[in-house]
């Protein structure tokens, strides 16, 4: 996936107004199966996997015992209903597999297989207000019957694929998982089907600005081994009532003691540059945190960012100073997300 095809701003706006096509072949996919697959996933993830019926997906994570994040993931209960399908971040795939195998060794009571299928699995996404219309031209199944975070097996342009109503842009859309050998022909067919509407291929640059406007976290920025889901504002992922899971004790303690840091959104109110990840954040001249992601928002046409700051300084409307090239530049905290689709 290149950083851009035609330009980040035009690609970004095309996804917001028409549709965009993403080649996500770099993402990792794992199959988790066996008679204790559910029990194992309940143990290694904080969300409640038991709530998934076949063909349903949930956003979740792999956590360290201290509550830090190994990776953020999507967990699908495969439509066939005999295994789970995990989508993990490209750069974390090897680490995730090693982590899962290590946890399995510690739970020899459970019968479970973990298989890295990244090399056999293609991944494309079509996102935007016209995504459904365009994709519908290539498949006999009725896409209107697939609701958010649901997946079905379907024929798409002659290729069998899992089709899920999921995404990472803040728009409606689908993610497709065809066999790897069909991915280039499917890409071509999708592009062909969407070109009359003005659909464009989308690069990594716009993928980042789209997800940031929609306030979707990026591993390595908003989430890491040093940041817990509670700090990142993702407490809804953590289901304390579902039984034991790795990280539960540490997160429960953090919740009881009060979460020390909070992820906040801000916009720059003074000229001085674009806030970038790892810029320091100051209040009254004291460092209170750091920027996790920042950009020029193509939708809002202003400089925005997310920052992890000491909780006592969080509050909509309250000022922050972001250090850009050694100078404090004034920002103001705003409500999140920066962008929410109206349709």
């Amino acid at each position, binding site marked *: 996936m290149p950083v851009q095809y035609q330009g980040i701003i035009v690609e970004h706006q095309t996804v917001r107004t028409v549709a965009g096509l993403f080649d996500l072949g770099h993402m990792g996919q794992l199959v988790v199966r066996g008679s204790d697959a559910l029990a194992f996933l309940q143990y290694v993830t904080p969300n409640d996997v038991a709530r998934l019926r076949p063909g349903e997906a949930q956003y979740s994570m792999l956590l360290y015992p201290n509550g830090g994040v190994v990776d953020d993931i999507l967990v699908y209960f495969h439509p066939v209903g005999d295994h789970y399908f995990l989508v993990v971040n490209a750069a974390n795939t090897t680490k995730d597999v090693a982590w899962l195998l290590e946890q399995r060794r510690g739970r020899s009571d459970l019968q479970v297989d973990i298989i890295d299928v990244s090399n056999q699995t293609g991944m494309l996404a079509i996102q935007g207000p016209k995504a459904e219309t365009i994709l519908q031209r290539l498949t006999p199944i009725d896409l209107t019957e697939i609701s958010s975070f649901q997946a079905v097996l379907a024929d798409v342009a002659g290729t069998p694929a899992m089709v899920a109503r999921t995404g990472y842009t803040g728009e409606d859309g689908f993610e497709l998982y065809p066999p790897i050998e069909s991915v280039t022909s499917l890409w071509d067919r999708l592009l062909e089907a969407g070109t009359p509407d003005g659909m464009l291929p989308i690069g990594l640059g716009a993928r980042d600005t789209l997800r940031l406007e929609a306030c979707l976290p990026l591993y390595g920025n908003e989430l890491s081994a040093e940041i817990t889901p509670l700090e990142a504002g993702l407490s809804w992922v953590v289901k304390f009532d579902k039984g034991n899971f790795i990280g539960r004790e540490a997160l429960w303690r953090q919740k009881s003691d009060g979460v020390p840091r909070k992820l906040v959104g801000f916009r720059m109110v003074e000229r001085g540059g674009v806030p970038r990840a790892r810029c320091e954040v100051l209040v009254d001249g004291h460092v209170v945190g750091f920027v996790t992601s920042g950009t*020029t928002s193509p939708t809002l046409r202003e400089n925005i960012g997310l920052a992890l700051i000491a909780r006592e300084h969080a509050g909509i409307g309250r000022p922050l100073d972001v250090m850009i090239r050694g100078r404090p530049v004034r920002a103001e905290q705003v409500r999140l997300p920066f962008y929410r689709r109206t349709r």
Partner: protein
Amino acid sequence: MVRVEPGLRYTRTHEWAKVIGDIAIVGVTDYAQSELGDITYLELPPPGTAVKQGEPMGVIESVKAASDIYAPVSGEVIEANQSIVATPEKVNSSPYDEAWLVKVRMSDPRELDILMDEAAYEQFLAEEAAAH
């Protein structure tokens, strides 16, 4: 294909200088803008600033990256293009014309000798491309 404008002098950091008497009009090249992508922010030295050849004199930012602008020649800034600061996207659309950045009164015109002409810059771009 990126455009190289004839009659200008070029730096290895992708600035250009157009020389009129002892004044150098300075901008960034078509290659620079295409590498940076959508440009959203410029910081230019105000008139009166002394700049030194090869040293940072400003900042250019795109959606994806920030980069320093290096002075192609030494001297004193006599004018900065305020209209381009307000419309930085013009660096993408018109890097050699509307998007001139500053005018510098040169203190040592012999410095121009170490800058590239268009043929040398084209060659330099080809070598850069081959190295990647």
